[in-house]
């Protein structure tokens, strides 16, 4: 049923909007920009910063446009003298409790408060600096996330992201009045609380209050050390977002340029996490088939559905929230960690290097990867497998620091070995991608035929719905997989931990009909990761996702098991999927963690 239309006047123009449209949305429809700070498309409305106030005829106060529904006959002014003065005052107040050390701030030039303060020409001296004579802390305890109270404007976007998108609730509001601030449970340091390091708080922070822990200087130092062989792996989702940090519109693929730039920066070898994503598919698809066999043929008590394990935010989430269900998680390491383990073993042998001299750097769309690399389990090569993890944003900084004219440089290919990849690996970056890649391989392993979808595009698993499901019927299977004949393989995909929790709750009550579930911690999957360029929103996630699928279609090899480097790796080194060497280097265990 069509919604009732509401007529109102905004800045002198009569418009009609569907009932329930806020004044902010109504203005946007008319291309009138109302400034905001606490508002974020991904989150529920808070209405607490009061920057978006507007004037309404007959109203005593100036309501917040983000929180006020359009009403019949309203006469709204978005830029009257009263509004401008109020906004300016509100901004000046925010500046008075904010550390205005913009010159040294990581978020400088990408800060919503800085932008508005400049736009409204805020006089820093109007009000008394409230940071003086008070103690504030910068929490650097976490491997992934830094929290700087002096830059917090208390908009609570992080709180809402943590609660609504992720259901983690690591951050919340404590105290009241002048002492009100964003903190963890009992104001404990970030490293000691139930935080999954996903970085959605960072990505939703309008200022520099929440940032990733940065390793730019350490990376430069390693590159500058002649005794070190520094290699870099780039995650699938980085190539479709990095451009945003370097002046491109969202959705532009900059893979080739990025590779050239990384070579310019001085990395000894520029390699691809996509290679190890293909490797992950080999192991994970076989693990799934193995689980099914042990359950159906051997009658073992095997936990199904199996869930993916690529997303370290998801891993820490299930470790904290559902520690009794860890055996549902695939034992496969994530592509980043598989890469590190292979780099410091096989790659080192092949290149005749001492693994101690290798510095394994990765660039990830993710902040949780920083934590993952530091996990105790992640040193199967005999040392820390991945040494330094940067976000897409940090790489953007490095490229800007290097003076490279990114737009002008040519494209080039990844180095060998561990630079080759399939389209199946690229789509790891989008929600549903791991599932699609796994199905392309598993189906073919079982039936000897390609998946029955046009152009290998398994469209039912794609999309933006928080939880999606699909099924593939296994018929005319190869003799060794006869136990799967006629089985309808049921799969589900969840992204955002709130959705993951819903999927888990179904498993707990025994009502999960699936065999295999892909779970990604961040909305949209890795393309919407906590390490991706800011801003990230629905529109931008959609553009990055489109770019990912285009990248897949442009690839000659579309299936993980056809990646020649992966085939060679099994032949020369690993033997077979789930084999002894694989088991040692590519699989891992999880930790039961406390809930508080």
């Amino acid at each position: 049923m069509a919604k009732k239309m509401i007529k109102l006047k905004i800045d002198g123009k009569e418009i009609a909007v569907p009932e329930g449209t806020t004044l902010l949305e109504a203005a946007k429809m008319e291309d009138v920009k109302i400034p905001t700070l606490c508002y974020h498309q991904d989150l529920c409305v808070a209405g607490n910063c009061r920057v978006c106030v507007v004037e309404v005829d007959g109203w005593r106060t100036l309501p917040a446009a983000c929180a006020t529904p359009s009403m019949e006959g309203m006469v709204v002014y978005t830029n009257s003298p009263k509004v401008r003065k109020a906004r300016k005052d509100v901004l000046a107040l925010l500046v008075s409790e904010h550390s205005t050390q913009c010159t040294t701030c990581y978020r400088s030039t990408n800060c919503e408060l800085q932008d508005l303060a400049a736009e409204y020409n805020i006089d820093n001296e109007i009000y008394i600096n409230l940071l003086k004579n008070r103690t504030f802390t910068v929490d650097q305890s976490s491997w992934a996330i830094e929290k700087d109270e002096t830059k917090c404007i208390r908009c609570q976007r992080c709180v809402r992201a943590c609660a609504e998108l992720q259901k983690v609730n690591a951050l919340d509001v404590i105290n009241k009045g002048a002492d009100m601030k964003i903190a963890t449970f009992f104001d404990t340091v970030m490293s000691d609380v139930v935080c999954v390091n996903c970085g959605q708080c960072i990505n939703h922070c309008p200022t520099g209050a929440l940032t990733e822990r940065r390793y730019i200087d350490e990376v430069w130092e390693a590159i500058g050390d002649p005794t070190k062989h520094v290699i870099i792996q780039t995650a699938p989702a980085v190539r479709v977002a990095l451009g945003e940090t370097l002046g491109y519109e969202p959705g532009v693929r900059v893979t080739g340029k990025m590779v050239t730039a990384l070579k310019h920066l001085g990395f000894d070898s520029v390699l691809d996490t996509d290679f190890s994503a293909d490797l992950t598919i080999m192991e994970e698809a076989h693990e799934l088939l193995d689980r099914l066999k042990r359950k159906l043929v051997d009658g073992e008590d095997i936990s199904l559905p199996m869930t993916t394990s690529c997303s370290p935010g998801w891993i820490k989430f299930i470790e904290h929230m559902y520690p009794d269900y860890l055996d549902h998680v695939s034992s496969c390491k994530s592509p980043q960690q598989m890469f590190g383990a292979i780099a410091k073993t096989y790659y080192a042998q092949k290149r005749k290097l001492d693994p101690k001299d290798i510095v394994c750097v990765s660039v990830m769309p993710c902040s949780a990867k920083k934590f993952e690399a530091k996990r105790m389990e992640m040193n199967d090569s005999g040392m820390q497998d991945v040494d330094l993890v940067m976000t897409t944003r940090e790489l953007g900084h490095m490229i800007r620091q290097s003076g490279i004219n990114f737009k002008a440089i040519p494209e080039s290919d990844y180095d060998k070995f561990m630079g080759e990849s399939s389209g199946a690996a690229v789509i790891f970056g989008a929600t549903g991608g791991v599932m699609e890649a796994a199905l392309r391989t598993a189906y073919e392993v079982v039936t000897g035929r390609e998946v029955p979808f046009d152009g290998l595009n398994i469209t039912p698993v794609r999309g933006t719905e928080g939880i999606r499901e699909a099924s593939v019927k296994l018929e005319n299977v190869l003799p060794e997989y006869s136990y799967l004949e006629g089985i309808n393989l049921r799969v589900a995909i969840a992204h955002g931990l709130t959705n993951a929790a819903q999927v888990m709750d179904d498993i707990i009550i025994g009502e999960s009909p699936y065999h295999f579930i892909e779970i990604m911690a961040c909305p949209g999957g890795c393309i919407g990761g906590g390490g991706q360029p800011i801003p990230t929103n629905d529109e931008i996630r959609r553009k990055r996702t489109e770019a990912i699928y285009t990248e897949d279609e442009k690839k000659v090899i579309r299936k993980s098991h056809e990646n020649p480097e992966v085939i060679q790796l099994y032949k020369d080194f690993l033997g077979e999927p789930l084999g002894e060497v694989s088991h040692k280097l590519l699989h891992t265990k999880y930790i039961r963690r406390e809930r508080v």
Partner: protein
Amino acid sequence: MAKQKLKRVDLIFSKDCSCKDILAKALKRPKEEIVKDLINSGLKGRGGAGFPTGLKWKMAMEEKGSKKYVICNADEGEPGTFKDREILDQVGLKVLGGMALASYVTDAREGFIYLRHEYRFLIPKLEMMLEKFHIWMEEFDIDFHVELFMGSGAYVCGEETSLIESMEGKRGEPRNKPPYPTNQGYLGKPTVVNNVETLVYTLMIMHIGSDKFKSMGFEGSTGSKLFSISGDTPKPGIYELELGMTLHQFVSEFGDNDAKAVQVGGASGFCVPRKRFKETHIGYQGGLKGFSLPTGGSMMIFNSSRSMYNVLHNYLEFFEEESCGQCTPCRVGCQQLLKGIEAVKRGEKSQKYLDDLLRLAETMKLTAKCGLGQSVGNSFSSIVENFREEMIY
């Protein structure tokens, strides 16, 4: 000074009527008639905001939905207000009677008394009253149950949406309005939130009739109300008086012959200097010539020995701490006003800085999310404008 004695009213605490009988009679009338009566009486919320009570009940009555709630706001926290505590202590059953009436009109089955944390000594007494009240409800064959809910000490929870948030187990922070509680309140259901005193008046209007109630006070500010009188007065206490008196009349009777200012409505109210006593009436805005000031009942009298700087400083310290901290104008504004007058007093900022602060107070009135932040500027501006020299020297 000629002392013209103000007429006392005796409705709230009057014991020569049976709460049960009034209720029994009222519950036989059609709901619409009760609402009509309340609207006719002109009764406005006695907590301070002054929303027409009959209208509020009508709105909740017209909401569809099976679950509705009635909440008695007993989170009396406004500095200088101490009437609700006395009402609950002396005539708690009348409050419950008002709640029963509201439940009857709106079809609410559950009610709560949100009791200020500091009033926990009233719990045993209230529980006894509740027991008696629930027996009445059974006798009347009415399905309405009331429970006590203890506040946790935040001033802002007197604001109805914060109160509801806190009842839902969340931080006591105001919600965005609309929607209003009558539309989506406790647990998202239509909810009537009324002040303790208001509820008693609804019952007493049933008793004396709306016309008689309306005959007191003046147009737009009908009836009587309880005043919590404190400060420099020889007879502090709680008095029930007709609305509409001038501050001159008030001070003539309650002052100590040296009143230089009266703070009407507590820390969030207005400060009136002596020169304005004659033209200032107590009541809701509109209706009379001159100024009309509403109050939740707090009347603080200051004589010439008081420093208005200290008075204001005290209020601002209170607000700086009691702001929930959610919205920018209130959280930061309160700190700036406090630190600002300190800086002027110490000579670190020029006296002209007071004008910047007055403008800031105006912005807070316009942009703060709830009544708390919007009313900080009331006391600030009225004190700074009227006693500017005391701020500086």
